[in-house]
């Protein structure tokens, strides 16, 4: 009995337990709603199905969640400007490709160059956030609030207040399909991003350093880590990844829509991090958890759309989920529950 219980508690206390349970719950909900949920077919030579759609659409979110996890771990705060930064990167990339025109079906410069410039500008936005947070010790969310509101304004100025269309077929590859490959490209982008980030975090000491800065910044400084620099780097990485996500999102619709690219995605990314079992107050992080969290959120979004919930109304449900997760995560609440169950046992 005792060993059974401990095995059970070992499973429930595994870091990936919560995220996986949430994912399964959402998937089961979906199967009940639409019995054909897991069916994957091939239409016109490409994979087709709900599941593929979720994994495909969730790519940007996964990319964002990776950056957000690092920022959360290092600084104990979240970067709420990622959605706006996505819009900036997309706007710059599309403007460069069209050569400043509103619509164009030719490329003014190689896509790779424009994309890299877009991503670098996003990195610059990240550096701005990082400077405010790491060097000036401003609370992360207030610091990123500046770009959260100004970012879309900047994107509007870049696109001159219009939607920039880049109709060259080669620009659609990143958000569509490579040649005859049946798997959508964004999935590859997300997988490559995750692998590269994991390699950087695991093969170098960066991951460990980020955790130690998040757990105790001054102690890490005293053992010789440059905690200011580390925090700054996480924000730059978050910015770069937001830029990449922005370009994928813009390639999907082969245009840059400053108002709608990455809209409300900052909330989804924070939600993914929280759902992944990461403490929003910083410290240890679990990248896989965040990634599973991101797919869970995307599955939730897709299923809510399937239930005829409009895009404007989605935030209500997501906000409720966020509140539930943070309440469950909060140590005070856990103590209360623990006390209550102890009392019950005592009574029994």
């Amino acid at each position, binding site marked *: 009995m005792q060993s059974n219980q401990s095995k059970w508690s070992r499973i429930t206390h595994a870091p990936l337990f919560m995220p996986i349970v949430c994912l399964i719950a959402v998937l089961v909900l979906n199967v009940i709603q639409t019995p054909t949920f897991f069916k994957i077919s091939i239409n016109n030579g490409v994979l087709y199905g709900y599941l593929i759609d979720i994994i495909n659409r969730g790519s940007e979110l996964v990319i964002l969640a990776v950056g957000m996890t690092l920022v959360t771990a290092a600084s104990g705060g979240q970067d709420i400007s990622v959605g706006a930064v996505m819009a900036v990167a997309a706007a710059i990339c599309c403007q460069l490709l069209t050569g400043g025109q509103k619509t164009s079906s030719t490329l003014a410069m190689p896509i790779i160059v424009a994309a890299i410039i877009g991503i670098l500008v996003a990195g610059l936005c990240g550096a701005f956030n990082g400077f405010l947070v790491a060097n000036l010790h401003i609370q992360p969310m207030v610091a990123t609030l*500046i770009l959260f509101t100004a970012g879309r304004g900047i994107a509007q100025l870049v696109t001159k207040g219009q939607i920039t269309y880049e109709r060259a077929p080669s620009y659609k590859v990143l958000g569509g399909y490579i040649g005859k490959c049946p798997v959508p490209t964004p999935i590859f982008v997300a997988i490559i991003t995750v692998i590269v980030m994991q390699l950087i975090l695991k093969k170098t000491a960066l991951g460990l350093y980020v955790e130690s800065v998040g757990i105790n910044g001054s102690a890490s400084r005293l053992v010789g880590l440059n905690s200011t620099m580390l925090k700054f780097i996480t924000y730059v990485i978050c910015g770069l990844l937001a830029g990449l996500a922005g370009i994928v999102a813009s390639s999907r619709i082969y245009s840059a829509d400053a108002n709608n690219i990455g809209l409300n995605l900052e909330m989804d990314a924070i939600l993914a991090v929280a759902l992944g079992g990461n403490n929003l107050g910083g410290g240890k992080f679990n990248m896989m958890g965040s990634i599973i969290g991101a797919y869970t959120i995307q599955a939730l979004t897709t299923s809510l759309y399937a239930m005829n919930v409009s895009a404007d109304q989605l935030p209500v449900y997501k906000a409720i989920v966020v509140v539930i997760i943070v309440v469950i995560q909060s140590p005070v609440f856990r103590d209360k529950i623990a006390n209550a169950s102890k009392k019950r046992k005592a009574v029994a």
Partner: protein
Amino acid sequence: MKKAKLSKTGFLLLITIVMFAVMYIAGMIIFQDKGFAKPQMFLNLFISNAGLIVIACGLTIVMITGGIDISVGSVTALVCMSAADVMENKGMSAVFALFLALIIGLAFGVVQGYLVTYLKIQPFIITLAGMFFGRGLTAVISTKMISIKNKMFLAWANEKMYLPFGYTNRHGVLVHAYIYPTVVIALVVVVLIQIMLKFSKFGRALFAIGGNEQSAVLMGLNVKSTKMKAYVLDGFLAGLGGFLFCLNSCAGFVEQAKGLEMDAISAAVIGGTLLSGGVGTVVGTLFGVLITGTIQSLITTQGTLSSWWVRIVLSIMLCFFIVLQAIIGGAGLKKKDKGKEKTAKATT
């Protein structure tokens, strides 16, 4: 120490007032031909920002305790939409709409306050969830714009109060300057809260908690209930401010008051409220609101700049003031450390 703190508050307030004066006078000189110098133009600043003044006052209270509330913009949208909905579609009276507005605000305040103070969750996360929740709920009520035609409501909205001064028009007739009752309410709120902050036990407790929560606990203050009251009061003022905003716009739609939280936070920060808590005045906040209003009217009077510039300029201002605070605060901290070192040396 007390003297240093006082001068810090005074210094920030002084910068704000000087900045407002400089901006307004510059506007008067540049846009002389467009009527910027008329007294009515000055009063219009109050008329169009009455709601924001009240909301920013509420936010100041929360920020003094070291917290923050970014849900106020969404609460405003929700209040406007539900007021419009009950009056136009449900046939309720304007008085009922006012009560509804206050109840919505209170509900947000109570829930967010409880989660922040008693479950110790970061205020940013909770109010971010509140922000998305409020905006989403607005969309649930209606995704279309509802304009208010309720007679009583319009009578409230259009009741002009003429002042004993004005300007002489081309025909030599004195045109009285006017304000709306909303302005009076807003100014009364400012005065009441300033008195409360300065002289009431509750007001002083807010500063004590913001300055150092642990010392406040040791002093025997009931930190939790004080913080809770601060959030409830903030929610109530957000509801009231939302209703005043509605009296100005006479309509409810989903995108309304988007970014208002940013305006309110900027106003408080520009007015000398420290983001770290413990310092702030609502008079400063009032000037902060006037500055944001002046930026807005300068850019709209100029005519050729797109409205996106308002957000961008405001963000730059916010950034400037945050950095200024960080520098002043940082200098203060260093002094403290030095003082500690000295005392430490003296004791050894």
